[in-house]
């Protein structure tokens, strides 16, 4: 993709992020943070691309990719579960 379309996506997503997160009830800040954190591990996509590229062989680049996949998947599973636990706590309080 050319620079301009990538940059447009970046600018638009800045606005989306701003308006979506603006005005959240303070009580929901922690779960929101947890979910945002879990979503940020979408970086796993980059790791997968690096890991798959070597077609099953292990070279430097795919090792880097595998480490990235490992770290990011800790965060994917852990992050969403933490968010779920927080939300469960929130429901009980209500």
């Amino acid at each position, binding site marked *: 993709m050319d620079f301009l379309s*990538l940059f447009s996506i970046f600018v638009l997503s800045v606005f*989306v*992020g701003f308006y*979506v997160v603006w*005005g*959240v*009830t303070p009580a*929901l800040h*922690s*779960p*929101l943070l*947890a*979910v*945002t*954190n879990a*979503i*940020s*591990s*979408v970086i*796993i*996509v*980059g*790791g*997968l*691309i*690096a*890991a*798959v*590229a070597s*077609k*099953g062989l292990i070279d*430097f*680049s*795919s*090792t*880097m*990719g*595998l*480490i*990235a*996949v*490992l*770290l*990011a*998947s*800790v*965060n994917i*599973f*852990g*992050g*969403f*579960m*933490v968010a*779920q*636990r*927080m*939300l469960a706590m*929130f*429901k009980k309080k*209500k």
Partner: protein
Amino acid sequence: MNTTIIGFAYLLSGVLFILALKGLSSPVSARKGNTYGMLGMAIAVATTLVGAGSGLELSSYTNIIIAVAIGGLFGSILARKISMTALPQLVAAFHSLVGLAAVFVAIGAYKNPGAFFDGGIISTGSMIEMSLGLAIGAITFSGSVIAFAKLQGLVSGNPLVFKGQHLINLVIFLGILVVYIFVMLSTLNIWADIDFGYLLGNSFGLMLLVGSFSALGIYFSSLTNQPIIAAILSFIALFAMGVLSTYFASDPNHWFHYISLNNHYQSFTRGVIDSSDVIYFILFIATFLTLTIRRLDSDRLSG
């Protein structure tokens, strides 16, 4: 797999992520939001595996499956077992892993550009993007580690300050810039012959020019409390210094040619460092900085 379908799948997961964040803004929809997030992540991962690995056998996924299994198990156990009060610092600790993962992805992409970019050539734009990704990943990692330490009570909750902190931050910031520029130039150097002396001379001249402009601007800012007036004054003065020499072009011996900043910059653009030009710029900067200091001193002493 068709690239259009892959594109749409990524778009779908992006939309699901936005819905997840939006859902988290109200208690009623919060749980639904979390589910959207998981769904979006699953679609993103599945699409990447199907898209990137077209024509691969299952065995090439073994490594990935093992990595995900270890990571997932570790993350799940941590998330389940840890006490409720420790959840915030757990989020911080998890987040540091994302930063680290981004760093590894950037390194992997740099060493094997064929997997990430068409034709295996890293364009300048991608190079900037990768460098930024690397730096932001590293900052995310260290920032999250400190956030974790603070929440865990390992470090006091007060802002971390130490002597010369701003100076060190400035040096780190400038250092990152210098490293980027160096990496970009050396990447370019593979394909093209770069005249580094010429480049250095030019940058040096540009630095002096910027310094002179800033010194004049600072002086005019010290004269007035109105930012607009200071801006307009500086602009007019710099415009005069820069452009008026073309007005006197018919008379090459006119005194104005000697004070024009542009004329003194000319030799640098040809890669020549002329000591008289350097001295002129340094004198210019020193004069206006001294005037500014005098001006601020007199303000302080009288007021």
